[in-house]
């Protein structure tokens, strides 16, 4: 099962290596990871989506993260009310024939064409995991050439 965790860390060199090293050394999986500065530049905020087959593994992941000296707090969003979003950029076929159909498809989502050149459009979309998933399924029919995702970010 996938769980969303946020981690506040000291913004110091090597912190990301400590966290990714911990995951590989203990055999945990990160499905996605997003890192950025916070309002306080010396603190970074990480949102990670981790795979844990049961509660025990999730518990260990949180405890091991907390043990790292540079980790300030660990928040588990699994049972917590929160908002999460992901941003994607997708290159999609954009032929004259499909134009109207594609624009119609995007209307249902927080998505727009941010650039187009010839037969290719770059689409930007933001949403919850279910919306992103649904949108990607719909875009399949137009042919997705390339896809970039930021990974989930979450806030409570």
């Amino acid at each position: 099962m996938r769980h969303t965790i946020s981690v506040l860390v000291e913004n110091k060199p090597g912190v990301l290596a400590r966290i990714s090293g911990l995951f590989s050394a203990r055999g945990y999986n990160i499905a996605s990871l997003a890192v950025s500065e916070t309002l306080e530049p010396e603190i970074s905020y990480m949102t990670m989506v981790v795979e844990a087959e049961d509660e025990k593994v999730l518990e260990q992941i949180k405890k091991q993260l907390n043990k790292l000296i540079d980790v300030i707090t660990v928040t588990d969003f699994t049972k917590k009310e929160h908002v999460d979003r992901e941003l994607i950029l997708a290159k999609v076929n954009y032929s004259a024939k499909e134009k109207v159909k594609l624009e119609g498809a995007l209307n249902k989502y927080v998505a727009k064409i941010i650039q187009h050149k010839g037969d290719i459009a770059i689409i930007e979309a933001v949403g919850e995991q279910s919306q992103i998933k649904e949108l990607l399924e719909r875009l399949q029919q137009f042919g997705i050439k390339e896809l970039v995702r930021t990974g989930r970010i979450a806030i409570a």
Partner: protein
Amino acid sequence: MIGAEILIECLKREGVQVIFGYPGGQVLPLFDKIYDADIRFILVRHEQGAAHAADGYARATGKPGVCVATSGPGATNLVTGIATAYMDSIPMVAITGQVKTFLIGNDAFQEADVTGITRPITKHNFLVKDVKDLARVVREAFYIASTGRPGPVLIDIPSDVQMQDSEFIWPEKLEIRSYKPTYFGHPGQIKKAAKLIAGAEKPLIYCGGGIISSGATFILRALAEKIQAPVTWTLMGIGAFPATHKLSLGMLGMHGTAYANHAITASDLIIAVGARFDDRVTGRLDAFAPSAKVIHIDIDPSSIGKNFRVDIPIVGDAKNILGELLEQLKEIPDTTEWLKEVEALKKKYPLRYKDGDKIKPQYVIEQIDEATKGEAIITTEVGQNQMWAAQWYRYTSPRTFISSGGLGTMGFGFPAAMGAKLGCPEKIVFDIAGDGSIQMNIQELATCVCNKINVKVAILNNGYLGMVRQWQELFYKKRYSHTCIAGPDFVKLAESFGAVGIRVTKKEEVRPAIEKALSIDNTVFIDFHIEPEENVYPMVPAGEAINRMIEGLA
């Protein structure tokens, strides 16, 4: 002050009395200041020896051990020693030189990414790129190493930082917002634990190295006596409770006493303190203590619930929590019947060996025990020697058994003995070694002789890598693949270094040789030619339930 002077000043303020190390290109500025410093410096013959010596010093004294090495190969040679300390939660500060800041990442001569290499085997590490950070980093390093669950911390210092000038500012107050160990247990949990203990019929205390690092031996004994519960311990917990005590069960686990393993299997309540239910202790997990409830006390929350189920987790320092628990115990359980059952187990499954005309390793250790009145510091290598030393010496106080438990590092015992002797010069220090492992850090003989570090080494010489041979005998049809290991003439070897060597080939020579070694004010190697194919028993085969032991003498 330049960086090197700041470092020395910090070490002094941290109360460091001895440094183990080895010089090299990127620590030249530091060594130039060590030359005049009022701190004892022990020049080892290999950096691994420095790390183990610092570790042995820390285990014997409770104070952080300090080791120093140069960049690149000097630092990588410390790695095994750092990992050893990490696995056993030993406070240690390792200081390494690094290439100049502007060369970092250039594959410079003797460059290695030491903070990268040691990240998973240190509690924390630092690369100091600005001399202004140095004093704070050293202060934090000692603080992190010695508080909470202790562990090694590494400080990597480029040589230009060692030479940079800066004002020395000692940070009086230390504030690490992301590091706040929990020392006091949750009162509600402690109350619940007290209630559970009061209702138990077959309580048992299972303790580990946490008792020793917390300094909780006295309070542990008070608790055991108050609730009349038998006490068993892990390899790291040896010395936490007197082996001579009526309630003692000895060590449990793979080579533990049969009665400890049977007792924990029968118990209905385990009070686990400063121990982590390691696989060498539990054996097959689903058969471990099947009817016991578990109170687990540990300063490291991640140790609780990691390997084994828990009913009452209590995070905090063992000494505080056991003290609080004692106060909260309004009722105590009646364990008369349970103690009778335990006594019967002790009678039925005693720890024993078959003595004979040849020299038995167990006999050698019993003789060392008698000759030193059970009051020496025993260090060990790893393998059969380690298990026999754990089983047959009667440890009565903490910090007297020094052994690489978690990592199982061969070559640990001899340099660790040096460190222990320097930390506790009034104590007799005996390294119980095998002929295989003693050869792994034998170069430290020179360090001992040059610095007049008087340690005794009992080599249990069977011509084999005995523990691996034992497994090959039992599980690989006696196919002794590369475990027959020829050694040097240990007597001549000791003499060539300026130490003393004694060879013992007859049983009646064992005790006189030990007495003679104790009377010599020098490092002594005693080369005991023991029964070559003696095994360590009892033994729980890997993956088996711990009450299903192989007994050599059944």
